[in-house]
């Protein structure tokens, strides 16, 4: 087993009577792509929100490199190297693509007053990697939806993270746009740790090293893609008969 970069122990979050995340213990290994799948309302986004500090856990704990993060604020979690993308594009609509990645990159800088060349260089590289180098001057809200999703990945790339938490990066995209993002994810996967929440099973089975199936806030099954593909329980609860 490679070392666990990020780990949850018995993590739960209730909304009133609803247990959206219910006793989840998972460990995300360094350098791997770990997909979290499950039907709508299974608690996948809530789970990511607990990891990124945007929601407080009702009980349970989160560890990053052995350090407890359960009550840490989103900005501190981000500065530790845990980056988050959202289910619907969450960029700075009024800023240009270049400014969006510059801001993300600047979040790692120590300077307040003087612009730093390193920040600009990191931003430029992130924009190139996400495939928007030519769109640097275009306002984010003028991008197509697919490009906005690319920009979002560019932004978190510019924060130079150790682990990516991606919430349905392919949601709402057409075939070609989705292909572009999948290629981008495959590129990222070579050097980064990724927690991937995604509905597109072709993409999940082609990228993931490990898959966890979440249903009603609980872990139904967790294991290698082949194991998940063959699991009777997963077929019944989620994948149905058309699993790839």
């Amino acid at each position: 087993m490679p070392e666990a970069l990020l780990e949850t122990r018995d993590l739960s979050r209730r909304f009133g009577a609803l247990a959206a995340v219910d006793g989840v213990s998972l460990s995300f290994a360094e350098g791997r792509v770990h997909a979290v799948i499950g039907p709508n309302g299974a608690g996948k986004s809530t789970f990511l929100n607990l990891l990124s500090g945007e929601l407080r856990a009702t009980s349970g704990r989160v560890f990053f490199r052995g350090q407890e993060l359960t009550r840490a604020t989103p900005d501190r979690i981000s500065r530790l190297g845990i980056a988050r993308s959202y289910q619907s594009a969450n960029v700075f609509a009024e800023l240009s693509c270049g400014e969006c990645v510059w801001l993300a990159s600047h979040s790692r800088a120590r300077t307040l007053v003087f612009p730093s060349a390193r920040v600009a260089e990191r931003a430029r590289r992130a924009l190139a990697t996400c495939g928007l180098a030519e769109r640097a001057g275009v306002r984010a809200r003028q991008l197509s939806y697919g490009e906005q999703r690319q920009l979002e990945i560019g932004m978190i790339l510019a924060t130079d993270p150790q682990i990516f938490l991606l919430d349905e990066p392919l949601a709402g995209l057409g075939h070609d746009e989705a292909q572009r993002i999948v290629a981008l994810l495959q590129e990222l996967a070579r050097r980064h740790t990724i927690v991937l929440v995604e509905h597109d099973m072709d993409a999940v089975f082609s990228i993931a090293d490990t898959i966890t199936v979440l249903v009603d806030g609980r872990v139904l099954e967790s294991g290698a893609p082949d194991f998940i593909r063959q699991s009777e329980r997963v077929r019944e609860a989620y994948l149905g008969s058309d699993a790839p």
Partner: protein
Amino acid sequence: MISSRARLFLALGALALAAVPASGDRFWMQFLGKAMIGGIFAMSLDLLVGFAGLVSLAHAAFFGLGAYLLAGLSNRYQLAQMALTLPICMAGAAAGALIIGWLSLRAAGVYFIMVTLAFTQMLYYFLNDAPWFGGSDGLYVALRPLSNPIAAYYAIWIALVAVFAFLLLLLRSPFGRVLIGIRGNEQRMRSLGFPTRQYLLAAFVLAGSLAGLAGYLDANLYGFVNPALFGWRESGLVLMTVLLGGKGTLHGPALGALLLALLQQQGERLTEHWTAIIGAVVIAVVLFLPRGVAGLLEARRA
């Protein structure tokens, strides 16, 4: 950013203002001095409203603190030298902004507005009832740092130009760009790793100290302070100035202050209900000039 047409207009305007004392007209020097102080005050609020996205109704409190501190230093301690009193007054206003901002920024949105309003009212009633500060009668500034009207006028002019240049540079710096990011999407900025509350607090304190500078110049110009400086009316008026001038433009609020001063002066001569005239102008600007007076200076969109 500012169009070349607006830049030319602003440069000419600043030069014209610098030439006014040559006319020797005391009335216009006093009048434009007051209007320029209003411009400094409004630009400092624009940092919050237009750039950081914070609508504060506490801004008059920091203006009032700058003014009252000067009156207090001069009355109680016979201190007037500008090199001494100006830093103390601005630091005092900044300290007030640190306390009020730290507490208010725990609330968001409309609650933030309410909390800042509540603090301003608290200070107003406190000063109204505190005999040491002159109570509702206020205080005279016994010794003015700049009692020569020409010196006072140029001090205000220099402060106006310096505050404008300072804020312009600040907003182009990484700090300013972070503020603009927070205005656009605070939640995203936080999840990118920015401690957004700390940035907003820094902006609040900076804006407060510049409002204190405006208050200091005001107390020097008039030689008198009273609790009305702290009223919610003053906070509302400066907010209106920012909107009238065009928030998020910096020069717009300064122009708005000049325009409001002119409206008030002309309005007062016509009718005692001059506030109604101002109200009508504000409504017209909001409805027909969404980018404020500053929008008039920009090239029309094709």
